[in-house]
Structures are given as structure tokens and as C-alpha cells.
């Protein structure tokens, strides 16, 4: 038996991020700290962002969860690091569209994140993939207010 349809979910690059998370840890004196969890399943993310002058200078995460949530967090930190706040938020919007299976703006290169496209076909797992992005949005929102 094969799990061919599952291969669209568990892409090699996702499993690589799960196994070797990028930007794992916490920024000592990060300007924003966000704790977010998915109460239905127990996934948890602790995200720190160093936002300076409208730029996300550094992003680190810690937490526990399934391969999709942790890989997504790793990819998210990689993607937003060095980006302007507006770009980071725009990326989040694009990612959300991608998860909903909508047409999405491809003018911004999302890099590894595109590997998560397959999650859209597994509705029960979309919340796993969006957790880190929601945390990032909340963090930037709190930083701006």
C-alpha cells in the first residue's frame, strides 16, 4: 500500500524543517514575545520577534506540536526575518489564502513555504499550519499598538 496522497502533505522539505528547525529558541531581549496555543490539540508556540524601525530583524520560536505546526513555524521565522513589517503581514495574508485553497498573490517569493500548499487538502490540519503565522500577526499588532 502507498500513501501517495499523504506525500502531498508530508513533503521532504517539511520533514526537514520539523527535524532541523531553523531559528529555534528565544531572542534574549526581543521587543515582542507571544505565547499562542491551539486549545483543541495542545500545540503551543512561543515566538519572539525583534522589530526595529519597521523591520523584523530577528525571529525565533520554541514550542511543541505536530510536524506541520513546527515546520510551519520554522519556515515562517525564516521567511519574515529581515523583512519589513508590512511585507511580513502580506506574506501572512498570502499564506492564509494558500491554506484556504484560494488563488494567492505570487509576486512575493515564499521559498520553502510553498511546500505547505498540500495542507489545504487536509482541512483538519490547516490550524496546525497557521498557528505560527497567527502568533506573528499578533506580535506585530501588539508591537504597533
Amino acid at each position: 500500500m502507498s500513501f501517495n496522497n499523504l506525500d502531498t502533505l508530508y513533503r521532504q522539505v517539511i520533514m526537514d524543517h520539523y527535524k532541523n528547525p531553523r531559528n529555534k529558541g528565544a531572542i534574549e531581549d526581543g521587543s515582542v514575545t507571544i505565547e499562542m496555543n491551539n486549545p483543541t490539540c495542545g500545540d503551543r508556540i512561543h515566538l519572539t520577534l525583534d522589530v526595529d524601525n519597521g523591520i523584523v530583524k530577528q525571529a525565533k520560536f520554541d514550542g511543541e506540536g505536530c510536524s506541520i505546526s513546527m515546520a510551519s513555524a520554522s519556515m515562517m521565522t525564516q521567511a519574515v526575518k529581515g523583512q519589513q513589517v508590512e511585507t511580513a503581514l502580506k506574506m501572512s495574508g498570502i499564506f492564509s489564502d494558500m491554506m484556504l485553497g484560494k488563488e494567492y498573490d505570487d509576486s512575493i517569493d515564499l521559498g520553502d513555504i510553498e511546500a505547505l500548499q498540500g495542507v489545504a487538502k487536509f482541512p483538519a490540519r490547516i490550524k496546525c499550519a497557521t498557528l505560527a503565522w497567527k502568533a506573528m500577526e499578533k506580535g506585530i499588532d501588539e508591537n504597533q499598538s
Partner: protein
Amino acid sequence: MNVNEIRRQFPILDQEVNGHPLVYLDSAATSQKPLSVIQTLDEYYRGYNSNVHRGVHTLGTRATDRYEGAREKVKKFINASSMQEVIFMRGTTTAINTIAQGYGREKVGKGDEIVITHMEHHSNIIPWQQLAKATGAELKYVPLQEDGTLSLDDVRETVTKNTKIVSIMMVSNVLGTMNPIKEITKIAHENGAIMVVDGAQAAPHMKVDVQDLDCDFFAFSGHKMGGPTGIGVLYGKKDILNKMEPIEFGGEMIDFVGLQESTWKELPWKFEGGTPIIAGAIGLGAAIDFLEEVGLDEIEKHEHHLAAYAMDKMSQIEDMTIYGPADPKERAGLVTFNLADVHPHDLATVLDAEGIAIRAGHHCAQPLMKWLNVSSTARASFYLYNTEEDIDKLVAGLVKTKEYFSDVF
């Protein structure tokens, strides 16, 4: 007990999910419904849908007869001494909240204690946390043994003369542990406390006799025993319920209404404010008929057998961790586990691709997850319609899941 015959009574089981025949192993979350329950709901809505206890028309009388007839069935099902002790509610959560607010706010004060355990479902934790916060009482937890059981010595140690309420689940939705409720009730009563039993995972699966247990309250949900969602039962001893104030006020529960003062109906209706859950209660009555026709002892035996079979087969998989009592005789029909480093969500997704439905997550028992030192677990739970073949498919799925993830890693 003829499982194939029983399976034919559950139309939902006869379908393919993701290209495979459905293997439903999530009955502890909610059970499937037999044809007789589905037909009963259909008959009610097509034939005699009407409000109860009011008006004099024919449909109203029919609906009232069937609604109160369901109460009679529940009374016999749990061996309550009177129909006045059977109150229809939305489910176990609402029932426990009603006790915490209706009984607790009156009887519990500063310096008093409420005793629960580390294995409780959130619905038997948070109502007591809120009560403790509101009254200044202390919420105490009976610790668990290494194998996820309770020791009566620990119960004796935790329950004191200051304890007003002891509230414990009869069967754990995670560990499968069957708690010695009768003995714990004795300890509660010796200390002057009342005993509340969360029966959500017990009533669907074994004979329950509230008079034999001697508990003061017993709560359970219809949807876990073949009944519809949105219906549950609060059983309470008559003398306690009589002295207890309702927490919901309005239509249906009143006797005389004046401008400034009102009086309540007698039991059980004083606790059933608003139009009751008529279809739900009648559906629950049909579910009880169905379970009793099969026989609760038979169902319990079948599930014990499945649990033993599953534990035997599953423990042969390498890197398998099974939680709860090791002896299948000491547990109910569910197995909670973790497989190697595969996260339960990933495991559940892979099994779902094979048509196998299990639960993954914290099972509404975060304090227990903490005690187990895991963030989440996977759970396969069984009911009267499950077979050894279902478990064989689960085991094959688990072996393949492990292979799949060892390939990707």
C-alpha cells in the same frame, strides 16, 4: 452478541472514507447512532412534534407521554429510586455545572474543600475551579498511582472533615481506568461530603446502579451511548435536589409567578427551565432500549475483550507506549498511546487516509497530560459495533505509519 447483526443497525458504518471502509474508533468522543434512534427522531418530527406539559391538544399529549416515558427509561437504566431524580440536561458538562452552582454556591464556603483527581476531564475540573475561586474553598487533587489508578489510601488522605464535595469520573476517557466509586463514596460520606460521579464514559458501557453506588449525583451524556447530541442526564438524590435551588429560571420550571416573587414546580421539572430537549430525550429513550436489548453486561464483556485484544496486538509494535492500567481486566474499552516520535496528529492524519478514525490531542484532560508528561496522545476507543478486524486494521495502519515516517525522516 452478534456484532455483524449489530453493525447492520448502524448505517453510518457502511461507507468508505478516503477510499477505504470506515473503521470508527472514536466512540469515546461520540458514539454512532443506531437506526432505531434515527427513526425515533424522524417519527417525532414527522408525527407528533409539539411542546410538552402545556396545552391540551393531542400532539402535545403524545409528545409529553413520550418525553416522560424517556425519563422512566432513564430511571430504570440507572436504577434511580424515583423519576423525580432524573433531570434532562444538555450533557455531562451542564449537569456538573448545575451541581457546582446550584449545590456548591450554597453549601461550600471559605476553608472548605472540593476533592477531584488528576485524571479528570475538563468538565469535571473547571466547574470546581470556578466554585473554589468564588467561595474561597480549596480544590484538592487525589494523586494517581504509577499505572494511572487511584489508591483508596490516597483518597482517605485527601478527603477530610472539611471536604464538602468529592467529584470523580467513573471511567477515565484517557486511561480507561475504572475507579472504585462505591468505596470512594463511602469515604466521602464518612467525612460528611457528598459524592458526585462523572459517568460520561461509564453509562454507555456498563450497568450503572446509582442506589448501589450510593452516590449523591451522577451525570452522563446521551450522545456517547447511541443517543442524539444535546441531551444528557443529571441524577440526584431526591432529598438533596429538593433543597437545591435551580440555576435557570423561566418558562416550564415555575409554579406561580407574581410580580416580585415566584415559586417553582416540583422535581424534576424545577430544574428544566425553558422548552426541554424533547426530541433529544425521546431519542435517548430509544438508545436505552437498544442498549438494553443487546444487554449492558454483553456490551461490557465485548469491549473488555476488544481492549485486551488491542493491547496485546498493539504492544507488539516496537516503540509503542500504552498509557493506563496494564491489566486489560482493570480497564474499559479504549487504548491511549503514543508511537515512537510520531506526533499524534500526524499519526491520526495517516490513519485517516486509511479510513481509520481515532482521536488525537489532549482529550480535554490537560492536567492528566501534564501528569503523563506528554503534550498529547492518540486514542482508539471501542463500542459494541467494533470488531477484532477493526483492531487488526488499526494495528496494520500503525505499523505502516511508523514505516512511513521512518522513510521520511
